[in-house]
């Protein structure tokens, strides 16, 4: 073994660079060990322990950079120090060559882009409200991706925005499409004449995707954040968005989507709709239908139905065509369920829904509330009961993996599949589970490699249980919906055209069994 060392005076590099260089050198043929560290007394003692200390280092100081290498032969050492110099020089060039200015405040960002009229804010909720206020003061519209913004702050921001004729999308608004530009978690969709206002992020994604896949397109898709339609906020941005779309010449049909608004907000929406001369379809998941009828609101029961009706209206087709189509599809679903359930064993009886989108989890519970008994959920709605321990499924269970208990310290399940994959394997290995239901959401911001990460897991699960999924997205998305659908089918999953269709299928499977 041969050991050689070199001192580099007056050269300073961060720890990651030095670790990286050390690893690169260590990987060279014939190199046994290497270290690139500052010449402190203590580091020299470690070098001594690891047989890397050379006498040349005796005269080094704390501020010198020491490069120490041990190799199996002199030949192996020959080019090592040259390689070290190259690696460090590359880093140095990168430092000196950079002229890029990355603004880190609203003020400096506006200096770079003075014509901007929309600010997207994604910082800790405690500070986001203040920044949003500053943006409104500068007559800028706001998209508040941040959550944990207080209700009081939200109301104050929205009232301020309303006075100024500006939009505040959020808090906790993760999706929008403005003038054809997808923002945050959004899909690549056709441009067209259907406008959407949504207090439900994945609801917006499902609608825009289905509309685009049906050959129609989106004018604007405005997110408002989930609390906007609650009593306290009073639907301020929902109404503002509705007015904006009513005045927008490129919008012919308007779709409203949220969980059930408070009755006071429904009344406001109904009053506003009287002034709107365009076709409007509302999908307020789980709302009392008779109440909506009383207020003269045209509604759909599922996101899919709302999307199909909006498409029909945009193409001047009768809505009855949509009803007929949905009826046909339900018959096909029933037939498919009869076939599939033959594969199940007698003790396989339960449904486990594992969702990355909260709206899909809610829609599933609403659709299945009368056909599947004893549904438990960590985010219960309709007739579902509260699941006390989110990690332990009971009977028929629907989990929203985007809820807080799953997302502290880890990316959202639309980005990071690892936690859901673990759950899929766990549920598939349970002999009482008959079917696993899941949503796969594509688009910007979502996991860019869903096939690689999901298909192997689904292949294994599908050998034990029935796996039913929907894929939200379009062929224009970075992941390409058609490619993803084919891959999941090849893996043994049953892929339905929408979350609603997937839910109806699993409802029939559980019923048949």
């Amino acid at each position, binding site marked *: 073994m041969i050991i050689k060392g070199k001192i580099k005076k007056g050269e*300073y*590099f*961060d*720890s*990651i*660079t*030095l*670790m990286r260089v*050390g*690893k690169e050198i*260590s990987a060279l043929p014939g190199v*046994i*060990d*290497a*270290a*690139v*560290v*500052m010449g*402190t*007394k*203590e*580091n020299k*003692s*470690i*070098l001594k*322990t*690891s047989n*890397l200390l050379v006498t040349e280092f005796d005269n080094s*100081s*704390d*501020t010198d950079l020491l490069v*120490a290498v*041990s190799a199996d032969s002199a030949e192996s050492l020959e080019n090592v120090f040259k390689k070290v110099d190259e690696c460090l020089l590359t880093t140095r060039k*990168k*430092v*000196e060559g*950079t*002229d890029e*200015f*990355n*603004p*880190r*405040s609203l*003020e*400096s960002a506006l*200096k770079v882009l003075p014509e901007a009229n929309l600010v997207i804010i994604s*910082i*800790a*909720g*405690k500070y986001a409200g203040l920044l949003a206020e500053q943006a409104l003061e500068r007559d800028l519209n706001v998209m508040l991706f941040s*959550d*944990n913004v207080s209700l009081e702050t939200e109301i104050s921001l929205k009232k301020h925005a309303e006075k100024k004729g500006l939009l505040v999308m959020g808090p906790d608004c993760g999706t929008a499409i403005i003038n054809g530009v997808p923002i945050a978690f959004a899909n690549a969709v056709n441009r067209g004449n259907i406008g959407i206002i949504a207090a439900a992020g994945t609801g917006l994604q499902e609608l825009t995707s289905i509309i685009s896949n049906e050959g129609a397109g989106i004018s604007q898709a405005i997110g408002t954040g989930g609390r906007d339609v609650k009593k306290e906020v009073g639907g301020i941005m929902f109404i503002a968005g509705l007015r904006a779309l009513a005045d927008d010449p490129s919008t012919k049909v308007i779709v409203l989507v949220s969980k059930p608004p408070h009755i006071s907000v429904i009344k406001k929406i109904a009053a506003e709709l009287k002034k709107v001369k365009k076709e409007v379809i509302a999908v307020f998941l789980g709302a009392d239908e008779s109440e909506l009828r009383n207020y003269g609101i045209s509604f759909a029961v599922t996101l899919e139905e709302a999307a199909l009706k909006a498409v029909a209206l945009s193409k001047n087709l009768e809505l009855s065509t949509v009803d007929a189509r949905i009826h046909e599809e339900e018959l096909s679903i029933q037939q498919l369920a009869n076939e599939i359930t033959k594969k199940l064993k007698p003790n396989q009886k339960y449904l486990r829904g594992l969702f990355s989108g909260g709206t899909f989890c809610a829609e599933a519970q609403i659709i299945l509330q009368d056909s599947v008994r004893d549904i438990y959920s960590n985010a219960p709605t309709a007739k579902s009961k509260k699941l006390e321990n989110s990690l332990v499924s009971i009977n028929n269970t629907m989990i929203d993996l985007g809820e*807080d208990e799953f997302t*502290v*310290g*880890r990316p959202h399940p639309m980005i990071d599949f690892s936690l859901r994959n673990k759950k899929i394997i766990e549920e598939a290995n349970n002999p009482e589970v008959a079917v696993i239901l899941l949503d796969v959401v594509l688009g910007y911001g979502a996991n860019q490699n869903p096939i690689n990460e999901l298909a192997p897991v689904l292949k294994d699960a599908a050998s034990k249980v029935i796996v039913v999924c929907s894929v939200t997205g379009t062929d224009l998305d970075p992941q390409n919906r058609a490619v993803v659908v084919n891959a999941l089918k090849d893996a043994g999953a049953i892929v339905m055209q929408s979350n609603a269709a997937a839910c109806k299928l699993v409802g029939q499977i559980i019923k048949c069994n």
Partner: protein
Amino acid sequence: MQIFSFGDNIKCGEYAIHSSFDHVINFISPSQRDMAFLVDEAIGSGPLNIVVTHASLQKILTLKVTPKFIITNLVKVPKISSLIYNSSLEFSDVNTKKIENNILIFRKILLELAHPLSLAFLFDRSRLKNFKPGFEKAFADSIIEGCTTLNKDIVAGINKIKGRGFGLTPSGDDFIAGFFIGLNFLNKIHVNKKINKINDLKLAKVLSSENILSNTFIRLAEKGAVNERTKFFLNSLVTGSKDEVFETTKKMLEMGGSSGADLATGIFAALIETR
């Protein structure tokens, strides 16, 4: 060039460039005792930081600080009092239970997100698999030994940790700075009124190296002067939601190369060492 903020510990005088990185230029006084850091907004405010905007840092070659101005080769800028960054720690609404819960979240995030070769292995020994046999393993072993001593004798333990590791500020020095910050934090929130260890330290024994950068950070930490990211992080431990703890911890871990992770590990060591 505009000044966004300047730290409350910057001494007046002329400075020359010590070292230069993507987002920071380190300046040093002729006496070699004082430093000032010219940084961009990516780094943020700190006790010795001058945060500049709308300027290319690499073009700044000289620095002079007077009572009323900050002068670089590019421009002379007045020191407006509203731009002074307050580096001291003050907390209100101290709820011990909340802090303990937030420390658990901090630990989880630290161990998930810290750089593989940072000192976080002290609290998750499975991370030792990232250390190659040879220098890296010997380094890790020496740190473990230092921490074991730390529990019994702080000064002796610090002397076994300092100066060790990678980077311009060795990992061990960043850990010590974090440890001091942690002790100051505990003093401020009065979790354990007996935590006066920081006042007992003979700092001169610790700062015997020639590494001016490390010495500077350790001195600041010892007196409880912290940068903005660390301040946000400590504030979130006291009053923040779990999301806020996550975000501020993440930001702190992004500091420097592995410095942020080593600093965070030092803070955590102080928090649990003195419970």
